């Protein structure tokens, strides 16, 4: 709606004097970079001092700089009218969108917001939306926001958060300059002292001043003789032709007032501008600006320059702490603790904790305890070694390497051992899989934070790595692990590894690393023997059914199983069959399920049958048919018999 901008109201046609210099500077800054400096910009002045001129000047200047910019100028009355029309037409949303998409919104005469609560709410919403989208809003009023009657406190705060600036009455010199400029525009020339005489009158409203000039121009046009200063003064007085011109003494005071105004404007407003700009800047960057906002709110007893300077220094300190914290602990990146310059201590404490390893490497899963492990002849050696490690970490068996097939309980033992070591309270215990170690290393390389990654593990009091065979062919992981191994060994920290592959058969792992692993104690964790299976089944049954069934446990325990995981699978199959039949699990049922003569299942709505046929005989073997798929995690590969 740029067409509504009066083409005469441009910056170059505005006479800038002491009274409006600051407002002009702010307006120019806004026009040059809308949405970035003072947003919202609120200009107030008594009528006839050039608010609308400034407002439209912003529109013209912004358009001149960037013709693609969408600029909309309207008075508050137009704003209200179009809102009511939009609401009446059920187009409220479209109305909002219309303004939200504007790059530069210029709203004139917002003093008429008085007692218009719904329009205030609408303007508040619009101001927030424009600010969020970095779009500029400029408003004018004949009084400061706080003096607009019944204006929503939130709007007052929003305006104060931008820049609120006033335009004072023009001083004598500015009045002369305005008269000269306007006379020139009208191609009227006057004798010496004529315009000065008019300017010396106490007319502090530009419109009235121009009205006086109009009378001079009209008078001179019909007069044969040039206008004299005394006549001009009388003419400018309008109806009060005989009204005395301001007494000389009063002029002295006006001059004094004018000078004081200029000085105050320079001093006070430059401050307010500086403080407001600083608030805008730091708030925009996401920092809390309570401290500098207080400068505008409280009685000023300290030098704002110093406060601003200190605030900036604190923000820099926060930034540096944030950078360090992000490097030490990536999850601290973007934390709000680094946004409040008034709480530097909090931020520093956070970084200190991060430095001390408050963000330790992955810990062992708390679910697995060493005491839960069932000791049997097969795993006795491994468990005893584990107990020695707990009692003498970094001492006798370092590293301890647990070798065993998949599912025999290596991970369980590793985490249980990790928990037992953590209880000792020597510091953070790192317990993770080789796969996770590689993934973390890749992430650290990507963030250029390998140093921090290393430091994290070097700070660990014990290092437990599951599935070390998975580092095969991963050269960088092996390099890092080698260095870490040496460091931890030197520091006397306990290391425990698990491998599904016997060390001698490890392929793709550097000999220097393999030999170091072999240098510790290597223990085998064999397939669970009958005793282990028995204990495992008892515990599972107790956990799942809350009941004991020695016969079922005996039967299932006697079935061959390569791993603890396989024992879980056997029991799960029986439980599923029992559930599908609606009966309780029993040894008989287990026999039927695992050896044949499967009772016809009660078909469940969601059960599926695979109908697998034994390849050797071609006959349907019930044991090879999976009637009901257990949960994915519990699925097992049935052995062929």
């Amino acid at each position, binding site marked *: 709606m740029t067409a509504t901008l009066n083409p005469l109201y441009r910056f170059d046609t505005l006479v800038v004097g002491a009274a409006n210099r600051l407002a002009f500077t702010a307006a120019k800054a806004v026009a040059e970079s809308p949405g970035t400096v003072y947003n919202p910009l609120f200009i107030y002045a008594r009528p006839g001092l050039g608010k609308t001129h400034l407002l439209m000047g912003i529109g013209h200047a912004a358009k001149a700089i960037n013709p693609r910019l969408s600029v909309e100028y309207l008075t508050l009355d137009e704003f209200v009218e179009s809102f009511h029309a939009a609401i009446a037409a059920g187009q409220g949303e479209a109305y909002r969108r219309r303004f939200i998409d504007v790059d530069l919104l210029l709203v004139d005469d917002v003093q008429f917001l008085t007692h218009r609560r719904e329009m205030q709410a609408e303007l508040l919403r619009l101001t927030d939306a424009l600010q969020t989208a970095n779009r500029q809003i400029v408003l004018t009023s004949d009084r400061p926001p706080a003096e607009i009657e019944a204006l929503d406190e939130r709007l007052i705060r929003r305006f104060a958060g931008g820049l609120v600036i*006033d335009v004072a009455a023009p001083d004598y010199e500015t009045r002369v300059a305005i008269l000269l400029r306007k006379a020139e525009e009208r191609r009227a020339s006057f004798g010496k002292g004529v315009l000065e005489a008019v300017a010396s009158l106490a007319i502090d409203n530009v419109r009235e001043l121009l009205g006086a000039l109009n009378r001079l121009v009209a008078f001179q046009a019909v007069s044969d003789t040039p206008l004299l200063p005394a006549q001009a003064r009388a003419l400018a007085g309008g109806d009060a032709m005989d009204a005395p011109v301001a007494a000389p003494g009063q002029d*002295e005071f006006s001059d*004094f007032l004018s000078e004081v105004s200029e000085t105050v*404007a*320079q001093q006070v407003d430059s401050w307010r501008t500086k403080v407001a700009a600083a608030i805008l800047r730091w708030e925009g960057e996401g920092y809390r600006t309570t401290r500098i906002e207080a400068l505008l709110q409280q*009685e000023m007893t300290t030098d704002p320059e110093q406060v601003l300077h200190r605030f900036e220094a604190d923000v820099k300190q926060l930034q540096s702490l944030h950078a360090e914290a992000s490097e030490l602990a990536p999850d601290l990146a973007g934390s709000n603790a680094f946004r409040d310059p008034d709480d530097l201590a909090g931020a520093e404490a956070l970084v200190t904790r991060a430095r001390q390893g408050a963000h330790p490497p992955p810990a062992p899963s708390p679910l697995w305890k060493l005491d839960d492990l069932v000791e049997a002849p097969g795993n006795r050696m491994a468990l005893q070694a584990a107990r020695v490690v707990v009692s003498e970490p970094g001492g006798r068996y370092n590293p301890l390497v647990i070798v065993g097939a998949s599912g025999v309980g290596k991970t369980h033992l590793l985490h249980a051992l990790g928990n037992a070591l953590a209880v000792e309270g020597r510091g953070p215990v790192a317990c993770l899989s080789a796969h996770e170690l590689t993934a973390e290393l890749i992430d650290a390389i990507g963030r250029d934070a390998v140093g921090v990654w290393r430091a994290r593990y070097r700070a660990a009091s014990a290092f437990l790595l599951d599935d070390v065979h998975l580092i095969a062919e991963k050269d960088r992981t092996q390099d890092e692990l080698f260095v870490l191994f040496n460091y931890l060994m030197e520091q006397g920290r306990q290391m425990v590894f698990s491998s599904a592959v016997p060390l001698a058969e490890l392929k793709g792992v550097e000999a220097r690393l393999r030999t170091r692993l072999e240098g510790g104690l290597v223990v085998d964790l064999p397939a669970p023997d009958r005793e282990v299976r028995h204990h495992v089944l008892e515990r599972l049954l107790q956990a799942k059914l809350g009941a004991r069934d020695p016969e079922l446990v005996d039967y299932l325990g006697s079935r061959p199983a390569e791993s603890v995981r396989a024992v879980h699978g056997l029991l799960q199959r029986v439980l599923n069959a029992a559930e599908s039949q609606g009966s309780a699990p029993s040894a008989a049922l287990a026999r039927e399920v695992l050896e044949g003569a499967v009772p016809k299942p009660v078909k469940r709505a969601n059960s599926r049958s695979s109908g697998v046929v034994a390849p050797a005989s071609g006959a349907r073997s019930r044991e090879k048919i999976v009637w009901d798929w257990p949960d994915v995690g519990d699925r097992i590969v049935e052995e062929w018999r």
Partner: protein
Amino acid sequence: MSLVNFTAREITCKIVYYGPGRSGKTTNLQYVYGRVPESRRGRMVSLATQTDRTLFFDFLPLELGTISGFTTKFQLYTVPGQSYYNATRKLVLQGADGVVFVADSQARRFDDNLESLQNLQDNLLAQGIDVRQVPVVFQYNKQDLPRDLILTQDEMDDALNFRAVQSFSADALHGTGVFETLKGVSELVLKKLATGTPVA
């Protein structure tokens, strides 16, 4: 005294006219009082002796209206010039934002001027204030008197104005230099807003 009060959006400047007795301090205030529109001036309080000398102080509050959103007030004070009123001078000087030193240009008052200036420095120092930190201007009054009775502005500057601050030649009785002096000190005081440090 706080120069700028952002809560009340108020600027208050306390300006003290200092100088030897009968140098024209009260006359300055009276002239200002006479030129200020009624709506802008408060009641001028003058406590004078029977011989019309200032006994305690003169006080002229000026309301300059709202400037840049701040209600701006000037408070003009004079101190009693007579040497035996030093306690009063000290009191009036407290919290001053600026000082106008009104010197009597008559040659015969030369020593009085020096003594009063010394007294100003002493009184400021007694309040822990270095005179160099205070906005001060000099006004050489009674320059309308015959040339052979007075010292010129340059001579007065040589005698009193060691720091080469602003000085004004004045005839306070007829108003010459009165507002110029007030403007001069006001500008210094207001420019000092940035530091927000009052005199005491």
